[in-house]
């Protein structure tokens, strides 16, 4: 087990270096200089000024290998530079404030997706072609085709504007400070309902489909017939023997779909004005705040890498075969 974990960890190192390299390439993508965004007057400094600051920050006039080394050593010291925004705060500080929000939201979303997708998948697989199965199939296709920003807008119209049941922006009400402790929690929770609903919608569709597929395959296996043949209750056959094996690919898929889930935070956070990494990224792009953009990119992708690693290790815990052979099927 320890050996396996170590091997995975070693494999992650080149990827980590790769992340820094691709990010470094992105800085150099621009044809010489950062360009004025045609998005109104949100940009804070003129193109020339931003260009000058960029040149100083990354030493863009020095040879490429020197620049990359410079960038790498800064990253190793967690030095992302200072924001170009007027407050000029360190990028690391800005990201640090927002990272927990995005992290917590994504973990909650993932838990909800798994908690709902597994029973839905098992149910539709064990009752293939039933009404329930058909309804979930429709849900899967529609869920997969629904743009999350559109769903968010529709829910805002319905619950926010028309019914007035739920707040549609931010994480706290204006009078938050004056609420009692429990009221504060309730307030936070009510702010989270719509964003989480939107963020889980597409993922839930995909995962329940996967779970169904995986379950359908497992149920056809001989060991399931054997379990039935020796007279086990159907509940035990499905709930124990089949479910455990059907869950295995789900762990892998969970790891693989993480970048998508985290990337989805960009849209959800911007629509619902949630102060997370996604919203920070969009703001930074509009303000041409390059240090924040680059810092965000490196942190988010490293985070995904770590999450993938955790999924890998989790996989080896639930599937002993992996530890022995040392590689995935």
């Amino acid at each position, binding site marked *: 087990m320890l050996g396996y974990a170590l091997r995975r960890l070693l494999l992650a190192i*080149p*990827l980590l270096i*790769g*992340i820094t390299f*691709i*990010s470094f390439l*992105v*800085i150099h*993508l*621009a044809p010489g200089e*950062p*360009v*004025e*965004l*045609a*998005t109104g007057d949100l940009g804070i400094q003129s193109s020339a000024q931003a260009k000058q600051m960029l040149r100083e920050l990354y030493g863009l006039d020095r040879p490429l290998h020197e620049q990359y080394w410079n960038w790498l050593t800064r990253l190793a010291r967690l030095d992302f530079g200072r924001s170009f925004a007027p407050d000029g705060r360190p990028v690391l500080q800005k990201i640090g404030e927002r990272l927990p929000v995005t992290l917590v939201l994504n973990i909650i979303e993932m838990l909800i997706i798994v908690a709902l997708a597994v029973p839905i998948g098992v149910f539709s697989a064990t009752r293939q072609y039933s009404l329930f199965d058909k309804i979930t199939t429709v849900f899967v*296709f*529609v869920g*997969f*085709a629904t*743009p*999350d*920003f*559109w769903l968010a*807008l*529709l829910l*805002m*119209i319905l619950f926010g*504007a028309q019914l007035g049941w739920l707040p549609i922006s931010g994480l706290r009400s204006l009078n938050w400070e004056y609420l009692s402790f429990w009221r504060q929690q309730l307030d936070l929770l009510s702010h989270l309902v719509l964003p989480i609903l939107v963020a889980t919608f597409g*993922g839930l569709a*995909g*995962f329940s*489909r*996967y779970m169904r597929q995986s379950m359908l395959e497992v149920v056809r296996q001989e060991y399931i017939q054997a379990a039935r043949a020796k007279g086990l209750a159907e509940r035990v056959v499905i709930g124990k023997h089949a479910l455990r094996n059907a869950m295995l690919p789900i762990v892998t*898929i969970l790891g*693989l*779909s993480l*970048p*998508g889930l985290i*990337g989805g935070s*960009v*849209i959800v956070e*911007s*629509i619902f004005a949630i102060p997370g990494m*996604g919203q920070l*990224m*969009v703001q*930074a*792009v*509009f303000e041409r705040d*390059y240090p924040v*953009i*680059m810092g*965000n*990119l490196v942190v*988010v*992708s490293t985070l*995904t*890498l770590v999450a*993938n690693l955790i999924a890998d290790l989790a996989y080896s815990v639930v599937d002993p075969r992996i530890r022995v052979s040392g590689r995935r099927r």
Partner: protein
Amino acid sequence: MTAFWRAFRRNQLAVVGGAVVLCLVVLAVAAPLLAPWDPHRPDVRKILDPPSGSHPLGTDQLGRDVLSRMLYGARVSLAVGFVSVGIATVIGIVLGTIAGYHGGAIDGTIMRLVDLMLVFPRFFLLLAVLAFLRPSIWTIMAVIGLTGWMGVARLVRAEFLTLKEREFVIWSQSIGASAFRIIWRHILPNAMAPVLVAMTLGIPAAILTESGLSFLGLGVQPPFATWGNILNEGKDAIEIAWWLSFYPGLAILVTVLSYNLLGEGIRDALDPRLRQAAGRFVGRSR
């Protein structure tokens, strides 16, 4: 081919999906003929008019006809879908072929690159790149294509690994066929089926990505109409003009849904076994 048609036709949902896709292409191509109004001409007397006889889908903040703007928007969506998936497919086929045919260290390097690209949450990467470039329809197509080739590369490589060992390939090697000829004439044509499916399913993903970027205001820029930026403008008037937000989103949903149904239909008709390789739900578009 006839066997394919017979199998495809039996899948009614896929046929409907295909028909809708065909209609959309026709609508997009014929947009200048069909649009009742000039999509760019503002009219101060008609600001935020609800849907009516002369403006079936209402007007926007500048009094422009939403239906006309959406017809023109269809052109952008479909063009971005086709071109970016085209770019991604070419890159994927080239890298997948090199990796699968050569194997060894080259294969290892290319596959690590695939792993690496898959670690980046795509939307963050797209935004970072777009921050340095001027957003236009061309840059959007390019960046969506350049960040979306990994699936095709994996597919093509996997096909090569299995086909390489097949007798017809070994025989043609033994009679001295060049590597180019073996790849081009013998292996690639056999690997095209899954690539075609991946392309059909890649187009809706690209359309979703483009509309998401345009929605954020970082995609194709106004005054060009796209479904995403009509929605972006519509969100500010959401409480008084629902039609501005509702119809473009519905158009995206119907388009993506139709492509997905079509893609699944093609896949099932080509090879029912491909169902097992259900790789498509992974990592949606961002």
